Structures are given as structure tokens and as C-alpha cells.
């Protein structure tokens, strides 16, 4: 019964925007309603997995005494002690390498990067060791490690703190790359990542940490887990498919509401998994709608949208009625000034315009030279 209520509340509305309406619906069934911030979702997932498996341990800068740079690991040091929640010196290369070594031995480290921008200083360990070891050792060295932290743009933090690494890690065989949107995503995907025997890059979003989402009783259970490699249809539609991940899912849902008022019924897909990419869900959707808009916050060239577009061309070319539209961040290092930053990241209006173009409701952009 709870599932049905949730569906009714959510149809055609983004969970965030309809918080007011949603909450009142929940209150009338208050015995089952629960909301959770993404921060708490991640914290509870870490807590439960650490409790269930003594091999799981957390490592990173400020994760212990400081309770986590973004408070994701709040309370864990107190509960599990310094052997399982390690505050590390400032060397990404160092603690990432240590994590990989511990994983070689058989432990299950969760390595936190204060932001994935800093993972650049450790990327050799992630790519050349973690991703490739199982293959290059012919199965002798498995690396059950999770690399997690905020990814992509925040607000007013400049170029070296705003880069999106989804396509960087997404291109590497041997890695799994996940990016949650809602609290349920955060819980289910982090738990799946920790349990997975392969190395997983877990791309969170700083601005989503404080956002609250409804969570089902099923999602609150400690055995809850989401499958890796399955996207979620956040909003069903029939006129145009909009793919997004992380924060952009929220924007896509809001765009879908605006489009609905103009008679365009958009289907919003929350990718959840960048690698493996859920090609079958995306293609099934495009075969239904015949139009595709890919949305990402990161840079356009060699981005996630480019890969999705190619996947659709390979599997469903005959079904497309319009060129694929790609919405991405501006091809510049992220500027700091608030007005410039706003113009460097996709806005809801950009998604709306792209969807309209795909539906031939507005003039096509002149093709760039």
C-alpha cells in the first residue's frame, strides 16, 4: 500500500518540489512516512555495512575526529574506533595506495576523497592498480574497494573544486561507477558498492547532501541494496526521454513539470550507474519516445551524454525522430563569480529548451562549424 501511495504522490512531480504536497500526503499515513537527507542516507549505509562486515573500514581526510568534511561519517569514529575509521595525513596518493593494498590483502576499504578533484592526485592507484589488477593478475588480486566523495560543481568553489569526473572514470574497464541522486539511491547504491567485489567509484554531490527525500520502509532496512547497472525511471512519459544523473535528475524532473504544462510529456531517467551504463533501459525508453535529451553537469566533450548518444545510435537509430540533444556544462574551467558560474552550468530552462527542440517545438540550433 505504501508503494502505491508513493507513486500517486510522485507522478508528474519532482520529489523535492512537491515536498509540501508530499509531506501532507505522508502525514495522513504518518505511521509509514519517513524522510531522510542524502547525508543521513550515506551515513546510515556506511554504519550498517561496517556493522555487518568487520572487514569494511573507512579512510580519508577528516573522516574521524572532524566527523567528516561534510559530516557524512558523523558518529562512526565513536562507534567503531580509530582502527576502522582512519584519519589520514594529507596524501591522496598515499591513502589511496594504502586502500588498494588493504584490498589486495582482503579488507574492504571505503576511501573518501574530500572532493573527486583531489582524486587526481591518486588517479594512478585508481586506474592502474585498482581497476586493472584483477585482470592483470588473472584473478589473483581482487580489489573490493569503494572510492567515494563529492563530485562535480558545488557553489562558488571555482575550477579546481567543480570538475565532474563521471566520464573520466566511466571510460575505464575494471571500474564500476555509480552516481546517486535521492536518499534511496544513496543508501542502496553505497551498500551495493561496499558489498561488490570490484572497485567502485561512487560520485556524490555536495549540494545534494542536505536535501531530504522520502524513503520507503524497504529502503530503511539494513539488507536493502540496489542493483548496480540499472537505471531508474523517475518519471514516466511518452514524448521525449531525458537522461540525467546526480543533481541534474532534480533539474530534469523540474524541467519535465514545465514541459508538462506545455503538453510535452517527458520521461526522466535517473542513470544511477555510469559504468555499466543501463543501455537497455535507455534504449527501451527512446524506442518509446523517439527523442532524447542527455543532461550532465560536466564538460561536453567525451562526456556521458556522448556515450549515451552513441549507444542509442548503435541500438535504436531507426527509432529516433530527431537529433539527440546534449545538455552539458560550458566548455570552460568553472568560473568563480556567481553570475558566471550560473551560466557555466546547465539550468532548468536549458533542459526545457532542448526538449522542445527535440520535439520540433522550437527552431533547431544552427549547426556549429
Amino acid at each position: 500500500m505504501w508503494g502505491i501511495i508513493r507513486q500517486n504522490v510522485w507522478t508528474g512531480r519532482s520529489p523535492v518540489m512537491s515536498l509540501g504536497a508530499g509531506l501532507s500526503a505522508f502525514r495522513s499515513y504518518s505511521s509509514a512516512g519517513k524522510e531522510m537527507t542524502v547525508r543521513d542516507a550515506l551515513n546510515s549505509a556506511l554504519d550498517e555495512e561496517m556493522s555487518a562486515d568487520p572487514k569494511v573500514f573507512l579512510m580519508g581526510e577528516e573522516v574521524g575526529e572532524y566527523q567528516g568534511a561534510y559530516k557524512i561519517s558523523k558518529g562512526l569514529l565513536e562507534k567503531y574506533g580509530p582502527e576502522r575509521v582512519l584519519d589520514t595525513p594529507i596524501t591522496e596518493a598515499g591513502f589511496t595506495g594504502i586502500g588498494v593494498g588493504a584490498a589486495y590483502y582482503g579488507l574492504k576499504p571505503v576511501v573518501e576523497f574530500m572532493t573527486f578533484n583531489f582524486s587526481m592526485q591518486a588517479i594512478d592507484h585508481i586506474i592502474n592498480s585498482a581497476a586493472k589488477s584483477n585482470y592483470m593478475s588473472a584473478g589473483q588480486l581482487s580489489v573490493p574497494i569503494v572510492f567515494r566523495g563529492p563530485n562535480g560543481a558545488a557553489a562558488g568553489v571555482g575550477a579546481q573544486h567543480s570538475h565532474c569526473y563521471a566520464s573520466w572514470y566511466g571510460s575505464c574497464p575494471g571500474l564500476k561507477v555509480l552516481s546517486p541522486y535521492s536518499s534511496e539511491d544513496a543508501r542502496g547504491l553505497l551498500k551495493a558498492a561496499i558489498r561488490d567485489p570490484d572497485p567502485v567509484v561512487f560520485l556524490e554531490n555536495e549540494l545534494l547532501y542536505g536535501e531530504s527525500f522520502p524513503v520507503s520502509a524497504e529502503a530503511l532496512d539494513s539488507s536493502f541494496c540496489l542493483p548496480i547497472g540499472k537505471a531508474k525511471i523517475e518519471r514516466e512519459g511518452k514524448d521525449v526521454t531525458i537522461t540525467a544523473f546526480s543533481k541534474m535528475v532534480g533539474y530534469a524532473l523540474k524541467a519535465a513539470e514545465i514541459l508538462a504544462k506545455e503538453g510535452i510529456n517527458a520521461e526522466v531517467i535517473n542513470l544511477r550507474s555510469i559504468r555499466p551504463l543501463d543501455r537497455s533501459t535507455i534504449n527501451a525508453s527512446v524506442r518509446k519516445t523517439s527523442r532524447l535529451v542527455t543532461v550532465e553537469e560536466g564538460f561536453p566533450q567525451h562526456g556521458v551524454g556522448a556515450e549515451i548518444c552513441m549507444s542509442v545510435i548503435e541500438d535504436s537509430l531507426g527509432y529516433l525522430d530527431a537529433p539527440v540533444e546534449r545538455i552539458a556544462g560550458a566548455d570552460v574551467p568553472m568560473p568563480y563569480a556567481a553570475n558566471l558560474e550560473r551560466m557555466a552550468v546547465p539550468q532548468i530552462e536549458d533542459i526545457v529548451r532542448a526538449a522542445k527542440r527535440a520535439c520540433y517545438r522550437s527552431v533547431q540550433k544552427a549547426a556549429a562549424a
Partner: protein
Amino acid sequence: MTFMCETPVKRVPCFRVLDDNGEPIIYSNYEQQVSKEVAVKMYNYMVTLQMMDTVFYEAQRQGRLSFYLTTLGEEAINIASAAALSTDDLILPQYREPGILLWRGFTLQEFADQLFGNQDDYGKGRQMPIHYGSNKLNYITVSSPLATQLPQAVGVAYSLKMDRKDACAVTYCGDGSTSEGDFHAALNFAAVMEVPILFICRNNGWAISTPTEEQFRSDGIVVKGPAYGMRSIRVDGNDALAVYAAIHTARRMAISEQRPVLIEALTYRVGHHSTSDDSTKYRPVDEIEYWKMARNPVNRFRSWVEKNGWWSDEEELELRNSVKKQLLQAIQVAEKVQKPELADLFSDVYDNLPSNLCEQEKLLRETIKKHPQDFPSDVPL
């Protein structure tokens, strides 16, 4: 106001047990640690390693192998350190330490199989030659990027500490690798985390063509240990007994006191960096000859073993003949064993075969069926 001087008044002394002629230097506190069996076994393996390198190197020159890398000149570090450790100690090598595997029981055939990348290779033909690995013998697969094994070894050591095992992590690197950021991160972390680990640095004077004078300006690597708050020792890497003693003691310290120890083993890289290098282009031939002949660690140890009456010329001849035969046999066999099968192209990327790779394999097999003449005939399907 006193500045610490950039060059030390005295260089850090080097621990030795045998002089250049294999005669023991009398120390008041050095105890004979090596029994006859261990000494003879060590000598045997040093000769085997030396011959293995010579024969496999030749095989590459003849075009039978694509690549090879020798350990010539560093046989004492390889075998003596392995002898001083326990098989429970996890090894994270760089790439010039196959002697550890040899000591632990990796056969010449197993080495050859990896070099030829055949079906019997434990690496399933995934890696270049000399990238050996053996879970069974606690030897982590060799990885090409330099010094990445150092912080990883600290992670292993931390895991051993959490498990309260009576074992330590042991990791090797060369003088060149100490310039990598990972070296700094690893030593710093190991000291802060108080983990049972041995950092064994083979200072062999050369990083391909870069001599140590151009690699760092410190008094070698041993002085870097105390900078991180780490106990350290400099040892004559060409003196098998000194290496054995130092590693044996360091290991006990690392495990009982749960601390890292740095060991700088001074030696000389007699061979070229690898088969892709000709070191006569950047260093004098007579320098190489000097270290190869006059300062050879194998000969030096042989002197001591023979003076004890534990070895003879006949046994030497017998050993060398036997090893040579085994090596040639191993190569012949390995060359003929089938290459890994097609499925091994796709397995182990992930724990389970993902659907996209399943599809790719299916597509590949169909294409091979349709156009068999376009595909190598020696890849079993």
C-alpha cells in the same frame, strides 16, 4: 642560529659481515645466524637466479621472448632477504626481485610460462614478461608504474596489524623510485600508522641512465628514514650474510614493535636496465666489468661457503649443468604450450562477466567463424 648542513660530515656507515673476498669481518656483537643448510640453499639459489637471468636474457636476444629484465649483481639482496623472511610475509615487489619467488618455490617452468604468456601462465598472458605474481607464495603481481607498491604495502601492513598476524609486509624499490611521490607518502604514513613493514630499497646506482647523483642530493636513501621518524639501516647489498642479518633483525623489530623499518641495500646494477636498454651508451664498460667480476655477490658468498667446507668445485659444476639443462628445457616446453584461450580476453575485468563483454565475445566468435583466415591460428577458441 644554526642551519643543519645539507651534506653530512660523515656518510652513514654501511653494515657488512664479509669483506670483498668473503672473509668474515670480526664484530663483537655479530652472531652466526646462517646454518650450513640455509647457506648452501642460499648459494644454490643465487647461482640459479644468475643463470636464469643469463639464459632468459639470451632467449630475448634470440627473438624467442619479447622482453626481459635481469637481476644481475643483486642476487644477494634477492635471495638473502627472502631467506631471512617467513613465507607468511606478504611481498610487494618492484620488478627486480624474482629471487624471492625462486626461494619460495616458484619453478623455472613457472617463470618460463609467464615469460611466454602461455596457457599455464598464472597471469593468463595478460602481462609483459617478468610481471610474475603468486597468491600461493604471497607475492603480489608485479605492476609497472614505479613506487605504487609502496603505499599499497602500507595498506597490507595495516591489514596485518588489524588481524594481529605474526607477519609483516615487505616491499622493494630501487633508488630511482624514491623520487616518486608515493615513496614519500608511504614512508610518512607507515610511521604515523605504526605498521609492521619493511621498506627495502635496492640502491643499485642507476635508474635506467640516471645515476644517483642526478636522482637525489641526500646521502643515499637511508637518511630519509629518520626524516619520517623511521628506524633505518644501510647494509652492503652484495654481502649475503649482512643482508640476511639485517632483514632478520628488522623483521623482528617490525612485528614485535609494530613499526616500519627502512633498509637501504647498496649494490650495483650489473645488467642493462632491461632488454630495451644498452647501458654502455651512458656508463663506462670497465665500470660494469669491475662490478661484474671483482665485486660479484655470488662469488663473494661462494668464497665464504667454500672456506667453511660446505661447497666444492664438483658441486658447482654439477649445479650449473643441472640448472642450465632445466632452463633450456623450461624454455622449450613453455614455447610449445598453447597460448591462453579466447575467453581469457574477457574474463577477470570484473568479478563476474558483464553483459556487454558477453555480447562482445559472442560477436567476436561469430566473426572468427565467418572469417577464420583473418585471425591468428594459435589462439585456442
